[in-house]
């Protein structure tokens, strides 16, 4: 072995960089890929519930977002491999999950423009935007097209559809009449018209066209008349809310699917567990107190947790790394703030769904939170006491 000719390394193309020279394997592209994987259960649930129109919306939003990102990168003259990091896909999917299933394509386009062009690239691209792009897109659309954003197609698996099918079969063997059905008050006018039309010309019940109210809409319409008797408050079917057989945006209905995705995120350390935990806890506490004060008027805390966009917001939107605080302590303050604002809007505000507004509002606070929640330097306490411990 000794006379084996010793080769010295050739120093022609050595790499020279500052320390450290070994890095961990995690990379931004990997993180974004994992977030997309975490979103698959929720999207799948949305597609199962709302059919092909949900898939179209998701696909359209993602394609628009990626296309716009490419366009903006070209316009700003930045390198195109910023597309590879997949953040545009994440924003596209999130935007899609925030829209109702039947949303027309041009609304998806405008939403994508708001998200990618306005909220992300005008601020300088990935990492510099103070507001969560998907949410800016959704809130912008909600304010610009309130009607389009609040027509919820009926969930295929929701009990309402089963009841409508059963009503048609009753009519078939005509032990009940159309008139009796109409004033039974069980179906909204639109649903009643669909049943009549399906019954009269014997066609299959077209589920996609009928719209139904989300549980949150229902409770906000419940009115308290003079002597405190509340009418129109729906009774709570927690199992349906948990599994997601209710109306609502594509990605937000099924709490179970979101929890699966959320667990994956926390397990892979892609989000700070403090954000969803404290967010949901705060909403639980505030709605709980309100429920104690006058139980009949406001819904139970569990209802508030499982319905509406809270689950989606807590696990996917509030935890977006770029727009949430950097330190763990800051994340707790941020999450509690989101929870308070969501509860306030849901209980007293005019919009039934407070999640998007609260997260965007707290995004505005993030630079401030970062400043006040900056970690204390190792040994700064001792320096303050002046001299040896």
């Amino acid at each position, binding site marked *: *072995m000794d006379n*084996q000719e*010793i*080769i*010295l*390394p*050739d*120093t022609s193309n*050595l*790499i*020279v*960089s*500052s*320390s*450290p*020279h*070994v*890095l*961990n394997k*995690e*990379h*931004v592209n*990997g*993180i974004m890929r994992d977030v997309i994987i975490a979103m698959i259960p929720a999207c799948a649930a949305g597609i199962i519930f709302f059919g092909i129109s949900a898939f179209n919306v998701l696909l359209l939003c993602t394609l628009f977002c990626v296309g716009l990102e490419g366009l903006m990168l070209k316009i700003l003259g930045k390198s195109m*491999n*910023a597309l590879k*990091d997949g953040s545009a896909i994440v924003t596209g999917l999130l935007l899609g999950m925030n829209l109702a299933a039947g949303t027309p394509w041009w609304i998806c386009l405008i939403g994508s423009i708001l998200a990618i062009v306005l909220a992300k690239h005008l601020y*300088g*691209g*990935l*990492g*510099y935007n103070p507001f969560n792009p998907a949410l800016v897109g959704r809130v912008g659309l909600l304010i610009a097209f309130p009607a389009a954003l609040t027509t919820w197609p009926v969930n295929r698996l929701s009990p309402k559809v089963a009841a409508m099918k059963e009503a048609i079969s009753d009519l078939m063997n005509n032990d009940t009449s159309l008139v009796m059905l109409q004033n039974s008050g069980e179906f909204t006018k639109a649903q009643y018209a669909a049943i009549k039309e399906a019954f009269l010309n014997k066609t299959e019940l077209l589920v996609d066209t009928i719209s139904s109210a989300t549980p949150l809409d229902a409770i906000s319409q419940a009115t308290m008349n003079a002597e405190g008797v509340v009418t129109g408050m729906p009774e709570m079917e927690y199992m349906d809310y948990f599994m997601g057989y209710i109306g609502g945006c594509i990605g937000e209905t099924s709490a179970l699917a979101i929890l699966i995705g959320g667990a994956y995120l926390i397990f892979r350390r892609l989000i*700070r567990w403090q954000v969803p935990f404290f967010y949901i806890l705060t909403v639980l506490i505030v709605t709980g107190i309100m429920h104690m004060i006058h139980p009949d008027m406001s819904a139970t805390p569990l209802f508030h947790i499982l319905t509406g966009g809270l689950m989606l917001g807590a696990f996917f939107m509030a935890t977006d*790394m*770029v*727009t*949430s*605080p*950097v*330190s*763990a302590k800051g*994340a707790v303050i941020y999450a509690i703030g989101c929870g308070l604002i969501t509860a306030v809007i849901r209980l007293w505000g005019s919009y039934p769904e407070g999640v998007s507004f609260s997260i965007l509002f707290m995004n505005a606070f993030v630079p401030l939170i*970062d400043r006040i929640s*900056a*970690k*204390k*330097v*190792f*040994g*700064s*306490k*001792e*320096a303050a*006491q*002046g*001299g*040896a*411990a």
Partner: protein
Amino acid sequence: MPKMFPGGVHPKDGKALSAGSEIKTAPLMDKYIVPLAMHIGAPAKLIVREGDKVLKGQVLAEANGFVSAPIHSPTSGTVISISKTSTTGEMLSVNNCIGPTGTLIPAITIESDGEDKACEPLPTIDWQNADAKTIIDRIRETGIVGMGGAAFPTSVKLSPPPEKNIDTLILNGAECEPYLTADHRLMLEEAEKIVQGAMITAKALGVEKIIIGIENNKPDAVKIMTEVAGDRAVVKSFPVMYPQGAEKQLIYACTKRRVPKGNLPMEAGCVVQNVGTMVAIYEAVVNGIPLFERITTITGSPVVEPGNWKLRVGTTLDKVLTLAKGVKKDVPVGKIILGGPMMGMAQYSLTVPIMKNASGVLLLAQNEVKQYESLPCIRCGRCVDVCPMGLMPATMSVQIEKEQFDLAENTNVMDCIECGCCSYACPSRRPLVQLYRHAKSEINAQRRKNSQK
């Protein structure tokens, strides 16, 4: 076992490559390039001229000023050329020397005459009852500097201002830097010298308590050190977490005291010394031999035969690599690093000599090291979680990129110990440590300018 300090990362260990091989003494080389600036502080003042004949251990350059250290000849031979520094615009001899930081530094080239004749060693000091001053003078005379990597003159560290009450001497055997096993092997083979050296240093400092901190990925070292130390020193074993060996983190782990922000360890009543320095002190005080040799790990996947070697100061990298039988043919080398992978300095030429603080020569294969393109900060907070000094690396890096150094200053960039945890954890591959080193040099320059005004 809970973590001993906040933050920290777990880089791949890589010590298995060279942990098993004993310390081998390097044969005599034909030529040594001995740099004049091998320590923190002013470079040493030349007292030999070209053509002089020198013996092994003879003083080539004295310390000039309090914070400086003398340079000794690694072998007997003739001084064939002295390169003056080019920064002062003087003439530069052809074989100038590229220092580890890549800049040209003044160096003395000695051609050994093969006899390796040593000059007569200094008289042994009976340190039990000698006073502190003679010990510290001997340490200054023999040019002993911190061997952990900082190369701060030890004599200066052992003579703190009188009003600082120092009560603990901490030996740094943590060696938390991956791939390096020099201290580990030293503890296994020279335990007695380390403890004796520690006793001498404790005598010089007037300190009773001695704590030896070792990471528990070196159980054999912990066992041997506890046996040899007996009641003379307390050996503490810490869970493996980089940077356990950093001064402030080690003091906190050993004594639960925190060094006040912006101050030296003596404010927390401790002095931290590397185990290698202890052996050097023992050799100097007991055997009267100056410091011109040190243990260095030569390791890395491309190296044919990784190992730990006792190298003389001034051995150039090409000779060092021939000791380790060069590199494997099929593994192209990506990086050559002096020191460990987390804090070491990348080199681009093999003419760089080994200096007093070279704890390792690490070669990384091309597939282990890529040219990374850094992406913008996505504020994921991983660097904030891992920073052992409790800083906000994400905020600082964005400020420094926009050259807002005053903002970076009050985000405490000056407290950064450049341990590299943040760059290690960053998924956007941002060169954070380089940004902070740039900011620190800018802020220091600004402070110097303000102090002159």
